[in-house]
C-alpha cells in the first residue's frame, strides 16, 4: 500500500479546514440572524453564546492572522525585549499561556459586568452587537496593535510611545486622560459597591469581612509562610465563602444586623476612608492578598457562570429593542446613538487595556508570535465575559430588571408608584413579585438598587439557582455581590495607588521631594488628593436623587473611549510612518468611530436641553427651581452642590474631548508631514536581533 505523501495530507487537511470554517461561519450567521430577527416572547441564551464564539473564532483565525502577517509583519525570529533584556525581574521570557493568564487577569475588571447590565435598558440587541463587533474590529485590534508596538519598543508605556512617535502633546494628553479616567473610574465603582451594600446587613458584613480576611492572608504570605501564594489564597477563599454564609447569619440576628445596616452616605464615607487607608498601607498587607483572592474569585465565578449558562440555557426575556432607544430610559438618559457605545466601553473597546498592553505584558513575551493570542485573544475573552453579563441581565423579567435599576428620582420612592410606572412602560411587575424576590435573595428591598451590581447578582443567582438548586438563592446572590465587591475594591486600591504615583511624578517637577514615592509626607499628600478627587464624585453620586450612575457612568465611558482613541491615534501614526498607509484603516476605522461617538456624546451632554442628558440643562433647571423656591427643604440643601457638580462635569467632558481632538490633529499633522517628505519624529522601534531561544521560530 502506498503511503500518502505530505502534500496529499496537507491538501486533505486544508480541505477539512475549509469545510470546518465554512460550518463555523454558517453557524455564526444563523445564530446572529436568530438573535437579530427574533421578535418573539423569549430567545434561548445559547444562541448568544454560539454567535459570540463563532464571531471570535472567525475573526481570530482570519482577521487577527491577517493583521499579524500582512500588517504588523510579526517576526518569530526576532528576539523580544524579554529575551534581550532578561534580568529575571522586569523582563522575563515567559510561557505564553502564563502571559495570557496574567494579561487576562489584569484587563478583566468589573467594567464588562456593569456596562452591559446598564445598556440592557435599550434591549438585548444593541448591546450584544456592539460587544461583538466593537470587540473584534476595535478592542481586540487596539490591544493587539498596542502590545505589538510596545514590544517593538522594549515595553514602553502608551504615554511614552505617544511622546516618542507624535510629540510632547500626545504624551501629555495620554498622561492627563489616564489620571482623570482613573479618578472617574474609582468613583463610579465605589458608587456601585455603595449601592450594593445600601441597607443590606448581609452584603455590608460580607464585604467588611473581606478586609480582615485579606489582611490575615497578607500576614500569612509575608510572615507565616512567606511567598506561599496558593496556600494563602486557599485559606482566604475558604474564609470568604464562610464570610458569605456568616453574613446570612448576621442578617437574622436583630442586634448584629443593625450594626451593619447603613444608608448610602455613611457607606460612601467608609469607602473613602478605606480607600485612603489602603493607599498608604504597605501593599503586602491588603492590596496584594486581596488581589490574589479577587483573581481566583473572578476566574472561578466567570467559569461557573459560563457552565451554568451552557447547561441551563436560560431564556432571554428582554425584547430585542425597548422604547428607551429614544433616550427616555430610566437607568441613564440618552438615545441609543451614541449612548450604547459609551455605556459599554469595557467588553467592546477599552482604552485602559492599552495601558496594560504597554505595561507588564510586553516585558514577558518570549516570542512575537504570541501577540495575536494574548492581545487579540485576551480581549475576545473579556468580550465574552461582557456577553455573559448581558445574558445575566436580560434573563430577568424586564419589569424586575427596571425595578431594580431605576433610581427613586425617576420612578418614585414608594414601591406602589414604582411598579405602576414600570408597568405603564409595558414591563409588568408587582410589589408582591418584588417583595418575594427580595425575600428569596435575603434582602429587605430590591427597588432602586442602581449601579448594575444587584441586578447582575439577581441574574447570576437565578442562573446558578436553576443550575445548582433554588434553595441557595440568597447565598448565590450574596456570593455574587461579594465577588463583585472584592474586585471592585481591588481596582479601587490599585487605582488610587497608581493615581498617587502619577501625581507624585507630576508634583516632583514642581518640588523634587514630592516626587519621592517613599517619602511619607508626599505619600500622605498625594494619596489624600487622589482620594479626595474620587471621593468628591462618589459623594455627589450618592446624594444625587437620580442615582449618580446616570452622570458618572457616561463620564467614565467617554473618558475610557477617549483613552482608546489616543491609543489608536498612536498606532495609526506609527502605521503611516512605517509606510503602511494602505493598511492604516485597521486602526483608523475604529478611531474614526470612537471620535464620532465620543464627540457626539460630549455634544449631547453639554448642549442637550433634556435635564436627564445635558449637564448644563440640569444645572440651570435646578438653579431655576431653587431660586423660585420650588424645592423641598432637603432637596434645596443639596441643590447648590448638585448644580456645581453638573457644571464641573460639563467642563470635564469638554476637557476630555479637547484632549482627544488635540491628539487627533497632532497625529494627522505628523502623518501629513511624513507623507509630504517633511521631517517627523523617527520611529522608535528597536532594531532587529535574531532570537537565540532554540528554534522558537519553528515552534508550530
Amino acid at each position, binding site marked *: 500500500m502506498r503511503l500518502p505523501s505530505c502534500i496529499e495530507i496537507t491538501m486533505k487537511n486544508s480541505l477539512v479546514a475549509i469545510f470546518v470554517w465554512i460550518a463555523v461561519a454558517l453557524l455564526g450567521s444563523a445564530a446572529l440572524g436568530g438573535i437579530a430577527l427574533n421578535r418573539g416572547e423569549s430567545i434561548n441564551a445559547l444562541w448568544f453564546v454560539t454567535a459570540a464564539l463563532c464571531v471570535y473564532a472567525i475573526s481570530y483565525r482570519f482577521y487577527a492572522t491577517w493583521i499579524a502577517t500582512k500588517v504588523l509583519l510579526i517576526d518569530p525570529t526576532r528576539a523580544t525585549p524579554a529575551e534581550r533584556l*532578561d534580568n529575571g525581574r522586569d523582563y522575563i*521570557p515567559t510561557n505564553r499561556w502564563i502571559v495570557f493568564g496574567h494579561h487576562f487577569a489584569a484587563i478583566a*475588571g468589573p467594567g464588562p459586568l456593569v456596562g452591559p447590565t446598564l445598556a440592557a435598558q435599550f434591549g438585548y440587541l444593541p448591546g450584544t452587537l456592539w460587544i461583538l463587533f466593537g470587540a473584534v474590529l476595535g478592542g481586540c485590534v487596539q490591544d493587539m496593535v498596542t502590545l505589538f508596538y510596545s514590544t517593538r519598543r522594549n515595553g514602553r508605556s502608551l504615554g511614552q510611545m505617544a511622546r516618542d512617535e507624535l510629540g510632547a502633546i500626545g504624551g501629555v494628553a495620554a498622561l492627563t486622560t489616564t489620571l482623570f479616567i482613573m479618578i472617574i473610574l474609582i468613583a463610579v465603582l465605589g458608587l456601585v459597591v455603595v449601592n450594593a451594600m445600601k441597607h443590606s446587613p448581609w452584603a455590608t458584613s460580607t464585604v467588611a469581612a473581606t478586609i480582615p480576611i485579606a489582611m490575615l492572608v497578607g500576614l500569612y504570605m509575608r510572615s507565616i509562610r512567606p511567598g506561599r501564594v*496558593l496556600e494563602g489564597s486557599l485559606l482566604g477563599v475558604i474564609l470568604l465563602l464562610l464570610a458569605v454564609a456568616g453574613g446570612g447569619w448576621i442578617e437574622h440576628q436583630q442586634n448584629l444586623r443593625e450594626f451593619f445596616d447603613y444608608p448610602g452616605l455613611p457607606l460612601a464615607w467608609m469607602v473613602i476612608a478605606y480607600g485612603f487607608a489602603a493607599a498608604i498601607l504597605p501593599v503586602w498587607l491588603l492590596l*496584594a492578598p486581596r*488581589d490574589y483572592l479577587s483573581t481566583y474569585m473572578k476566574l472561578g465565578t466567570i467559569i461557573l457562570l459560563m457552565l451554568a449558562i451552557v447547561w441551563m440555557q436560560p431564556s432571554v426575556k428582554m425584547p430585542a429593542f425597548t422604547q428607551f432607544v429614544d433616550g427616555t430610559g430610566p437607568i441613564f438618559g440618552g438615545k441609543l446613538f451614541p449612548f450604547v457605545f459609551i455605556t459599554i466601553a469595557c467588553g467592546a473597546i477599552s482604552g485602559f487595556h492599552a495601558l496594560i498592553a504597554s505595561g507588564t505584558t510586553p516585558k514577558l513575551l*518570549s516570542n512575537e508570535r504570541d501577540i495575536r493570542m494574548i492581545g487579540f485573544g485576551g480581549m475576545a475573552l473579556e468580550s465574552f465575559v461582557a456577553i455573559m453579563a448581558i445574558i445575566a441581565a436580560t434573563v430577568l423579567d424586564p419589569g424586575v430588571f427596571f425595578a431594580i435599576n431605576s433610581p427613586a428620582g425617576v420612578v418614585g420612592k414608594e414601591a406602589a408608584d414604582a411598579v405602576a410606572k414600570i408597568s405603564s412602560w409595558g414591563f409588568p411587575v408587582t410589589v408582591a413579585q418584588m417583595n418575594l424576590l427580595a425575600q428569596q435573595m435575603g434582602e429587605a428591598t430590591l427597588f432602586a438598587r442602581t449601579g448594575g451590581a444587584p441586578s447582575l447578582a439577581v441574574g447570576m443567582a437565578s442562573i446558578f439557582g436553576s443550575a445548582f438548586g433554588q434553595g441557595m438563592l440568597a447565598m448565590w446572590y450574596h456570593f455574587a455581590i461579594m465577588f463583585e465587591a472584592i474586585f471592585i475594591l481591588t481596582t479601587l486600591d490599585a487605582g488610587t495607588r*497608581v493615581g498617587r504615583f502619577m501625581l507624585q511624578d507630576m508634583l516632583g517637577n514642581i518640588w523634587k521631594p514630592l516626587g519621592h514615592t517613599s517619602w511619607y509626607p508626599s505619600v500622605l499628600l498625594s494619596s489624600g488628593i487622589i482620594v479626595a478627587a474620587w471621593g468628591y464624585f462618589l459623594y455627589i453620586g450618592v446624594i444625587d436623587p437620580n442615582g449618580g450612575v446616570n452622570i458618572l457612568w457616561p463620564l467614565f465611558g467617554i473618558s475610557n473611549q477617549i483613552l482608546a482613541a489616543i491609543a489608536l491615534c498612536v498606532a495609526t501614526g506609527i502605521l503611516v510612518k512605517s509606510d503602511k498607509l494602505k493598511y492604516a484603516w485597521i486602526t483608523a476605522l475604529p478611531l474614526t468611530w470612537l471620535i464620532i461617538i465620543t464627540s457626539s456624546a460630549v455634544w449631547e451632554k453639554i448642549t442637550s436641553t433634556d435635564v436627564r442628558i445635558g449637564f448644563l440643562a440640569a444645572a440651570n433647571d435646578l438653579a431655576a427651581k431653587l431660586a423660585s423656591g420650588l424645592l423641598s427643604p432637603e432637596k434645596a440643601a443639596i441643590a447648590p452642590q448638585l448644580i456645581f457638580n453638573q457644571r464641573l462635569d460639563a467642563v470635564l467632558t469638554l476637557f476630555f474631548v479637547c484632549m482627544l481632538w488635540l491628539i487627533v490633529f497632532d497625529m494627522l499633522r505628523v502623518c501629513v508631514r511624513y507623507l509630504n517628505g517633511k521631517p517627523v519624529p523617527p520611529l522608535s522601534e528597536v532594531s532587529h536581533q535574531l532570537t537565540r531561544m532554540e528554534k522558537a521560530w519553528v515552534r508550530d
Partner: protein
Amino acid sequence: MGTGLIERGVGESFSVVSDSSLPALETGRDLNQCVAQSGTLTANEEICVKPFQLLSYLWRVIRELSGDDAYERYIAQHTTSSPGITPLTRKDFYLYQQRKKWSGIQRCC
C-alpha cells in the same frame, strides 16, 4: 516549539528562565517533550501521557500562573546569573516582588 532551552555563546551568562521550566502546551508532541524534560520520562521511553503526568503539568501551570513558584525560579535564575552574591530570602523576595508589581498599572476597569 517552545522547549525554552536557551543557547548562549561561550562566556555569556546562561539563565534558566521560566519558559524553560514550562514549555508551551500546544501539541501532543510538546506535552510529551515537556514531560520528558521534567524528568518524569526519559527520552527513550515510549511516549505516552499518563493522567498523573498531565496533573503534574497542570499543577506546575497553576503554580507559575499564581506566582507560587516565583522564589524557586528566582533562585534558579540567581544561581546561574549571579553566583557568589547572596540571594534575597524568601520573605524579602516576596516583599520586593509585591512592591514592584504594584508600582504600575496592574488592574484595569
